[in-house]
C-alpha cells in the first residue's frame, strides 16, 4: 500500500525529486553559460547540489518509516543525477 503511485505523497515526492534535478541542472548550466570558465560558475554547482541534497533528505524523511521504496529510489536517482551534474564543476 505504501508504494501506491496514486498516493499524493508518492506522486509529489517523485515529481519534486526530478524537478529538483531540473532546477540544479538549469542553475549549473546557466551559470556556466553566463560566465564560462569562471570560478563563480564552478562554485555554484556544488553549492546548489548541497542545497538539493538537503531538500532530498527532507523529502526522504517526510516519507516516514513505512514509506515507499520506489519513491526512495526516485530520490536516489535524482540524488545520483545531481551528483553527476556536479562533477564537471569539480573534476572537469
Amino acid at each position, binding site marked *: 500500500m505504501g*508504494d*501506491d*503511485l*496514486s498516493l*499524493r505523497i508518492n*506522486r509529489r515526492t*517523485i*515529481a519534486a525529486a*526530478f*524537478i529538483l*534535478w*531540473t532546477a540544479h*541542472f538549469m542553475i*549549473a*548550466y546557466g551559470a*556556466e*553559460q*553566463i560566465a*564560462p*570558465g569562471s570560478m563563480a*560558475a*564552478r562554485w555554484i554547482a556544488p553549492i546548489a547540489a548541497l542545497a538539493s541534497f538537503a531538500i532530498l533528505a527532507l523529502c526522504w524523511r517526510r516519507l516516514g518509516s513505512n514509506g*515507499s521504496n*520506489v*519513491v526512495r*529510489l*526516485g530520490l536516489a*536517482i*535524482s540524488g*545520483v*543525477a545531481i551528483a*553527476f*551534474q556536479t*562533477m*564537471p*564543476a569539480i*573534476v*572537469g
Partner: protein
Amino acid sequence: MTSETGFDHKLYGLFPQPRKQPDEGLKELERVWETPRGWKIITAVNNNYIGFWYVVTSFLFFLLAGILALGMRVQLAAPMQDFMSPDTFNQFFTMHGTIMMFLFAVPAVEAIGVMLLPQMLSARDLPFPRLSAYAFWAYLIGGLSFFASLFIGAAPDGGWFMYPPLTSTAFSPGIAVDFWLLGIGFIEISAIAGAIEIIVGVLRTRAPNMTLDRMPMFAWAMLVFGVMIIIAFPAVILCTLLLEAERMFNWPLFDPTRGGDPLLWQHLFWFFGHPEVYIIFLPAAGLMSMMVATIARTELVGYRLNVLALVATGFISFGVWAHHMFTVGMPRVSTGYFSAASMAVSLPAGIQVFCWIATLASGKIRWSTPALFVVGSIVIFVMGGLTGVMLGMVPFDWQAHDTYFVVAHLHYVLIGGMVLPMFAAFYYWTPMVSRTPLSERIGRWVFWLMFSGLHITFLPMHLSGLMGMPRRVYTYLPGRGLDLLNLVSTIGAFIFALGVLVFLYDCARNFRFTAKGPDAGNIFGGGTLEWLPAGLYSTRSIPVVHSREPLWDNPELSREVEEGRHMLPDTATGTRETLITSPVKAEPQYIQLMPGPSIWPLVAAIFTASFFMSLTVQAYPFAAFSAVVTLAAILRWLWDTDAPLAVEQAEVGGGIVLPVTVTGASSHSWWALNILMIVIGMIGALAVFAFFFLYGSSPEVWIAAPALGQTAMIAGMYLGVLALLWAGRRVLRARAGRVAGDLPWVLVMAGALLATWALYCDITGWLDAGLDPTATSMGAIVFMFMALQGQVVIVSLIMVVYLAFREARGLVTTPHNVTMDIVARFTGFVAVQGLVFTIVPRLFPGA
C-alpha cells in the same frame, strides 16, 4: 481509501450487477456507434478506424523511407559509384531521416496510442474524436505531399537536422528548405494535437477505479510521451519560425555577419531532437512491458520501478541535448554537464531492461513471434544503449561524432528500441483488429531476417566509423579499407528489407481488418482490458477495475462486461458518450457526449495542408483562401459539438446518476486548453532563451533600450489588462443567478484591446530607438518576440469577439462560464507573455 472527488468507493461493490441487460440496449448501442457506409467511411471519426488508418499510413512512410535507405545502400555498396548523383543522394538521406523521425516514428506511436488506448482504458473513444480525425488527415495529406517533393527534384537536401547556414537563403536559395520548414511545422502541429488528445484521454477517460497505480504500462508511457511532446515540440516549431523569418524577411538570426549565431539553431533543434528519441522509445517500451508480462504469463516485475523509470527518463532527457554538440567548441565544463546527464539518463533505461529480464525469469515464457521480437529487441536495445554511453564520453565522442559509428548507434537504438517492439506489437495486437491472426511460422522468418539483417547492416558500421568514414557522404574513396565493410552493410540492408517484405506477405495473406468483430481474440492470453470483447463502441459496459490485469484476476469479466453488468451499459443518453473519470483515482465524474462522423475535419485538414503548400510556393492569395476555408470548416465542425443537451444527467448503472457534461476545472476541455497554453508558453520561453543566447554570443550589436518611462508605461498597461480581466470575472460572479449583462465581456474586451495597444507601443518604442529587424540579430529576435506576441494578441481578439457573440445570444451564464473563463484565461496569458517580452530586452540592453 480516501476519495478524490467525493465518490463513495463502496459503490464499486455494486458491480457486476446481478442482472444481464436486455438485448435491445445492445442494438441501440450499435445503432449509435454505426459507421457511415460506402465512400462516406472517410467521415468516420471512431478510433477503431482512425487508429487503424493512422497505423497503416505511418507504416507506409516506414516503407517509403526504407526504400530510400536501400537506394543509399546501393550507392554505397562500392566506392565512388554513380548509381545516383550527389544531389539525389543528399535529398535521399535528408528525406530518409526526416520521414523516419517526423512521418514514421512519432506518428506511428501516436497512431498505436489512438488505436489501443481507448480499448486499454475501456473508454468508448478518445475524448476529442474529431480532433484525432483532423490530426490523421492533416498528417496523411501533409506527409504525402512532402514526400512527393522528391519526384519533382525539389526535396530538401540539408539533412534532417537542417543546420543553418547551409539552409539559409545564401546556400539554399530554392523552395526545398521552405518546403521542409512549413511541412514539418505543419506535421508538428498535428503531433501536438494528438498529444493533447492522448494526455487528456489517459488522465480522464480511464475505466472506473483504474487508479494511476493500475494503469497499463502503455498508458503510463503515453502519458509521459504526451507531456514530453508538449515540452519538446515547441522548440522545433520555434526553430522553423526563426529560420523561416530569416529566409523570408531577412532577419539575421543565424547569420554571424550581423550578430546571429548558427549554434542557436543547434541548441533549439536538439532541445527537441534528443527528447524526441525518448518520445519514440518510451511508448515502445510501454508496449514491451505489456507484452513481456503476457508472454511470460506473469505480472510485470517492478511495475512501479518501471513507472519511475519512465518519469525519470522524461525529465533527464531534457538535459542531454547538447551531447549532439560536443564538437562545436563549447566550453569544457558545459560539455561536462551534458556528459553527466547522458550518463544519468542511462540509469532508468537499465531499470526497464532489468524489469523485463526479471519478468521473463519469474514467469515461464511461451515462445511465439511477439516473444521472439521482444527478446531480440532487448539485446539490440542494450547494444545500442552501450554505444550511447560511449558517445556520452566527451573525448570518445570527439573521435566518433558524425561518423558511421553514430549511424550504427542510432539505428541500434531506434530499431531495437522502437521498430522491433512495433513489429512485436503488430503480431501481438493484430488479433484484436483482424479476423485471423498473423502467421506464427512466417513471423519467425520475419524476425530472424530482420534481426540478422540489422546486425549485418549496422555492426560493421561501428568499424567503418572508426576507420574514418564520416556520415552523410554520398560516396567514399577506394583503397581506404571501407569497400568490404560497406558491401556487407548493403547486403544486410537487403536482408532486413526482405524481412519487411515477408511481413507484408504475411499481412496480405492473413490480415483481415475488422472493427466490429468477430476478431481473432485474445490468442496470447493478455490480461488487460483491450482483450475484452468489443465492438466499435469498445465494450458494452465499462468494467470497474480492481487490479492491473483484470482479465487474469477475474476470468468472468469478459462475460460480465458483454452482458452489460458493469458501468454505463449500452447508452445512457441515446447518443455517443463516454465516462469521464478523475485523473488520479479514476472515480466516475460525468458522462461526456461525443461527436459522430463528420466530413469537416477532413475538409479542414485538406485546406490546412493547401494553406501551408501555398505558402511554400508563395501563392499568397490561395493561401489566404485556404486559411478562410480551414477556419470555416473548423467552426462548422465545432458547431455540432455545441448542441443543446437533451438530458442533464443520466444513470450509469447501480442507481448511480452522473451529470452529462460539466464545466470548469473538471471539464476535459479546460484541461486541453491549459495544455495548449503550456505549448505556446514554451515557444515564448525558448524565444527568451534565444534572446539571451544571441546576447551572449554577439553583445556588440545590442543597442540601448528605449526610455525607462516608456517601458514602465507598457508594463503598466499589461498589468492593467490583468486588472480588467480580474474585474470582468468578479462582475460575472457578483451577478450570480441573474443575466450576465454586458459589463463582463466589455471588461475582457477592454483588456484585449489594451494588450493590443501595449504591443503597438512596444513596437513603435523599438522602432524609435532605431532597432531594425534586418540589420542585427538583436533587431531580429526582439521583433520575433513581437511577432509571437502579435499572434496571441490576434487569437485573443478573435476570442473576445466570439465571447461578445455568445453574450448577444445570452449564452454567457453566471456565476461561472466556460467561454468567459477560457477567454479571460487566455487574455491573461497574453498579458503575462507581453510583460516578459517587453521587460526582458529592455533589462538587457547594449551600450
